[in-house]
């Protein structure tokens, strides 16, 4: 008998749904923060006498498969111009899909040391109960201002939209590195708002922040049920365990540091899909 998961022993529960906070000014940035999503998974493995369970690991894999991330800036007057910062398209963001770990190249989520996985020890007696606990609270920021190189005038953050969509997978890895995906669920966080400084000469003065795009524009969503097995969406399944999958924090940080930008000498309309 080989070591295997006991039938119907795997479960995954979302214990806390996330919420998105209203965008807020912190220093010279407009911040987009959320409260934690929390989830827990478990399973039991069994084997025959003499089977060695050492190295069998239950953990979580999180993939991000959609990113919307743009900011529109405009000057105080029409002749001060406008800018569009796009962080979700190449070259700023080469691909939409990425794997979400702190350590670049890691596969299992690693932000809850000691609790985010269970690794069976040699000699442990079957059946072996394994748990993996998860939390996450994505966030981002846009600078409040940007100098328009065409007009050389300060442009102010006027609107932004951010959407991060994730799939979180409970997965069992054997010592040979083969994964068995047991459960998964989807979740996302959305922000969209318009901004206006109340005092263009003093950015620390309160900003007028108007949330936009209706009920779905500023919301966190979690799938209604946890699904069995592996996700089958080809947009991100190829990177689930691929060693060279892009890292989400690194990819997003690069795009925030070096966004694609378009500028105009007037208050222009930009296509946010580009």
């Amino acid at each position, binding site marked *: 008998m080989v070591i295997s998961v006991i039938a119907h022993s795997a479960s995954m529960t979302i214990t806390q749904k996330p919420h998105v906070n209203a965008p807020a000014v912190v220093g010279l940035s407009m911040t987009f923060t959320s409260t934690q999503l929390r989830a827990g998974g478990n399973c039991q493995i069994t084997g025959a006498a003499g089977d060695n369970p050492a190295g069998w690991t239950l953990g979580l894999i999180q993939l991000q498969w959609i990113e919307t991330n743009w900011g529109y800036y405009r000057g105080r007057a029409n002749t001060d111009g406008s800018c569009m910062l796009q962080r979700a398209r190449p070259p700023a963001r080469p691909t939409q899909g990425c794997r*979400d770990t*702190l350590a670049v190249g890691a596969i299992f989520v690693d932000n809850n040391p000691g609790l985010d996985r269970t690794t069976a020890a040699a000699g442990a007696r079957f059946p072996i109960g394994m748990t993996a606990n998860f*939390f996450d609270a994505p966030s981002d920021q846009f600078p409040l201002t940007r100098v328009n190189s065409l007009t050389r005038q300060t442009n102010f953050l006027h609107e932004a939209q951010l959407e991060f969509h994730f799939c979180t997978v409970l997965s069992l890895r054997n010592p040979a590195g083969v994964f068995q995906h047991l459960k998964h669920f989807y979740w996302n966080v959305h922000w969209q708002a318009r901004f206006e400084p109340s005092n263009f000469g003093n950015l620390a003065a309160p900003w007028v922040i108007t949330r936009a795009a209706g009920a779905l524009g500023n919301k966190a969503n979690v799938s209604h049920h946890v699904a069995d097995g592996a996700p089958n969406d080809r947009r991100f399944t190829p990177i689930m365990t691929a060693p060279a999958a892009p890292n989400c924090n690194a990819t997003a940080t690069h795009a925030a540091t070096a966004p694609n930008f378009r500028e105009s000498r007037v208050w222009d309309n930009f296509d946010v899909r580009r």
Partner: protein
Amino acid sequence: MGQFRRQALVAAAFLASGFAILVARAQPSSPVSVELGARFGEFVVVNHGSAVLLNSTVSVEQKAGGRWEKALVSNLALREACAPSPPPKCTKLERTASLRPVPWTGSFCSSQCPSTCRLDGPAPAGTYRFVVTTCSGEHSYASPPFQKP
């Protein structure tokens, strides 16, 4: 008389050199020290010697099993205020100057200033220390250990 004067000069020189040694010994053994502030996450980098170029990235290490291991904390830097643009790779600390960075929040990714984080969360409770490195990577300076509740 002349011999006495010469002996007195030698004695004075000896005393002076001894004083110099004492002064040198009174100096901190490390040219740079990382001192902890009163509240969690606060720290100060003090330069006791000549101007030094430090790597702007501050590492956080956690004590695990009696050894110091690098914690997966990112975005912590030698910056005294938050700015939308990332800090330069290196920060110059002038002779005998000190720098009081924005404190560590205790989180892995949003560790200091508003950041771009897809995976984040608080680092677990434990014993930690800050580590600052020269820009060349040649020397590292660690803070005293502190507890994260």
